[in-house]
C-alpha cells in the first residue's frame, strides 16, 4: 500500500518537474512571451482556486457561490502584512491562515443550510466582504491597493499549484476525505455511520478557504494592484463553472477545464467586441452538451486517450 503510493508520488513529482523545465525553457528563450507567461500564471492560480472550490463543491457537495471572498481576504491580508515587513513567503502563509479563519467563521453558521439556501448565503457573504473592503481606508477602499511588488514568479505559482494538488489529493484519499464524500452522497446515512457531518463540512470549507487565500496572495503579488470588486460573486461564479465543467470529483478534469476556460477568453480576444457574446454562448452550448452526456473531460479524454481507464470516480 505504501509502496504503490510512493511510486505514484515520485512519478507525479517527476512529471511535474518535466513540465516545469519545459515551461521554464520556453519562457526563458522567449518562445512564450510575457503575455502568455501572465496567462499561464493566471491559469496556475485559477487551478489552485478551482481545486480548493472543488473540494467544497464536488467532494463535499456544498454549493458555495462565495469562494472568491476568501481569495480577497488572502490577497489583502498578504499584501497588508507584507507592507508591514513580513517576507513574501510568510505573508502568503499569513494571508492563507486569515482566509482559513474566515472560512471557519463563515462555515459554522451557514453549513446548516442546504442547496440553494447555502448558495445564496455564501453569495451574500461574498458581497458583504467586498463592501467591507471598500470601507477600510488603509486598504485604499474602492481605489484599491497599489504598489504591491511583483514577487510572484512562475516558479512560485507552479510549485504552489503542485503542492496544492498533492495536499488536496491526500485529503480526499483519507478518512477525512471519505467523510466529506459521504456528506455529499447522503448526509443522513453518513450521520447514521457515526460521522459528524457539520464537522467535516466546516473542515472542507476551512481547507478550501486556506488555498483560496493562498491563491489570492499569489494573485496580489502577480497583479501588483488589487481592488475589492475584482473579487465579487462573479469571480465565484467563474470558479463554480470551472469546477462543474471539470466533472464531478476528479482532479484531472478540474485542472483541464480550468486551464481551457481560463485561456478561452484570451484565445477569443481576436473577436473583439463579440468576445463577451461568444464566451457565454459557448458556455451554454457546453452545458447543454454536458447534459446530453458529451462530457468536456471525456472530449479531452478522447483527444488524449492512451490507457483504458474509464472515468473513474472520487476515490481515484
Amino acid at each position, binding site marked *: 500500500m505504501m509502496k504503490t503510493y510512493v511510486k505514484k508520488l515520485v512519478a507525479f513529482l517527476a512529471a511535474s518537474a518535466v513540465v516545469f523545465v519545459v515551461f521554464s525553457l520556453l519562457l526563458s528563450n522567449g518562445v512564450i512571451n510575457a503575455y502568455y507567461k501572465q496567462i499561464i500564471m493566471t491559469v496556475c492560480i485559477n487551478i489552485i482556486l478551482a481545486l480548493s472550490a472543488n473540494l467544497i463543491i464536488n467532494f463535499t457537495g456544498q454549493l458555495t457561490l462565495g469562494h472568491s471572498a476568501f481569495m480577497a481576504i488572502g490577497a489583502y491580508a498578504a499584501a497588508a502584512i507584507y507592507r508591514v515587513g513580513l517576507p513574501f513567503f510568510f505573508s502568503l502563509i499569513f494571508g492563507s491562515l486569515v482566509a482559513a479563519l474566515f472560512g471557519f467563521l463563515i462555515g459554522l*453558521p451557514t453549513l446548516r443550510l442546504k442547496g440553494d439556501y447555502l448558495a445564496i*448565503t455564501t453569495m451574500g*457573504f461574498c458581497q458583504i466582504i467586498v*463592501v*467591507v473592503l471598500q470601507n477600510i481606508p488603509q486598504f485604499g477602499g474602492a481605489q484599491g491597493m497599489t504598489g504591491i511588488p511583483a514577487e510572484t514568479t512562475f516558479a512560485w505559482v507552479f510549485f504552489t499549484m503542485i503542492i496544492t494538488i498533492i495536499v488536496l489529493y491526500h485529503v480526499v484519499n483519507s478518512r477525512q476525505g471519505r467523510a466529506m464524500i459521504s456528506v455529499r452522497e447522503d448526509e*443522513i446515512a453518513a450521520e447514521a455511520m457515526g460521522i459528524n457531518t457539520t464537522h467535516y463540512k466546516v473542515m472542507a470549507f476551512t481547507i478550501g478557504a486556506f488555498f483560496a487565500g493562498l491563491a489570492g496572495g499569489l494573485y496580489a503579488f502577480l497583479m501588483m494592484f488589487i481592488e475589492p470588486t475584482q473579487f465579487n460573486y462573479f469571480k465565484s*461564479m467563474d470558479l463554480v463553472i470551472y469546477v462543474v465543467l471539470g466533472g464531478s470529483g476528479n482532479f484531472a478534469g478540474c485542472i483541464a477545464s480550468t486551464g481551457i476556460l481560463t485561456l478561452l477568453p484570451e484565445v477569443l480576444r481576436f473577436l473583439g467586441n463579440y468576445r463577451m457574446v461568444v464566451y*457565454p454562448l459557448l458556455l451554454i452550448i457546453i*452545458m*447543454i452538451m454536458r447534459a446530453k452526456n458529451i462530457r468536456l473531460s471525456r472530449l479531452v479524454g478522447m483527444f488524449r486517450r492512451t490507457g483504458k481507464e474509464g472515468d473513474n470516480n472520487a476515490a481515484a
Partner: protein
Amino acid sequence: MTFVEFLQQLINGLSLGSVYALIALGYTMVYGIIGLINFAHCDIYMVGAYIGFFAATSLHLPFIPTLILAMAGAGIVGVLVERIAYRPLRKASNISLLITAMGVSLLLENGFNCIFGGDPRSYPHDILKQTNIELGPVHTDSLHLIILATSLVLMVLLQIIIYRTKIGKAMRATSADKDAAALMGINVNATISATFAIGSALAGAAGVLVGILYNSIDPYMGIQPGIKAFTAAVFGGIGLIPGAFLGGLILGVIETFVTAWYSPLAGAIGFIILIIILIIKPSGLLGKKVSEKV
C-alpha cells in the same frame, strides 16, 4: 430624525420596496415552479425596458400599448430562453442549470451592449407624466404610486391565476413534483413555458416602469436591482407570491433607514438581513419549514 423625516423615509422605503417587489414577483414565480435561481430574469427585465423604449421612441406609442408590447416581448424572450437553454437541462443537476442561467444572463447583457451600445438611453419625457404629490410635509410622486399599485395588482392577479385557475393548479402540481404531475396528465413543458411567459411578462412590465421612473436604461441595468429583488424574494419566502411582495417592501424600508443612519453600510445591509433570516428561518418570512423525512 424628526417625525416628518421618519415618515418621509418610510415613504421612500416603500417606493424603493415597490420596485424590488415588482421584479421579485417574477423571480419567486420561476423559482417556486421549477426551483431555478434564474440569473437571467433581471436581464429579461432589461430586454423589456428596451422593447418599451423602441415602442415609445420609434413607434411613438403611448404608455399603455408600450407596456403591453414590452410585456409580450419579454414574455416571448422568456419562453424562448426556457425552451432553448433550460429545457435540455431539465434532468441535469441544479448547478448546471444555475451556470446556464448565468450564461444566458451574460449573453443578453453583452449581446444588447454589442447591438445597441453601452450608452444609457431615456424614455420620452411625456410618456408618463411624473407629478410630485404633496401629502402635507411629506411628498412622493405619481410614478412611485403607479409602481406600488401595479405590483399590488400583479400580486393579486398572480394569486388568482395560481390558486383559482386550471393553469395555476398545473403550476402548483409541477412545482410539487414534476414527474407525478406528468403522470396526472399535466403537460409539464407547457406549464413551465407558461410560468416563464408570465414571470418574464412581469419583468417586462417592471423594466418599462422602472425605465421611465429613473429615465435611463442600459444593457447592464438589470444586475443591481436583480440581486436586490432576488434577496427580497428569498427574504419573503422563495416561491410564495405574497412573500416576494412583502419581502420587497420590507427590504426597501430597511435599506432606506440604514442608508439614512449610516450610508456606507447600505450596500451590504440587504445581504446581512438575508443571511440572518436564512440562518434563523431558512424558508424565509412566510415560508413553512420543510424537513426531510428519514
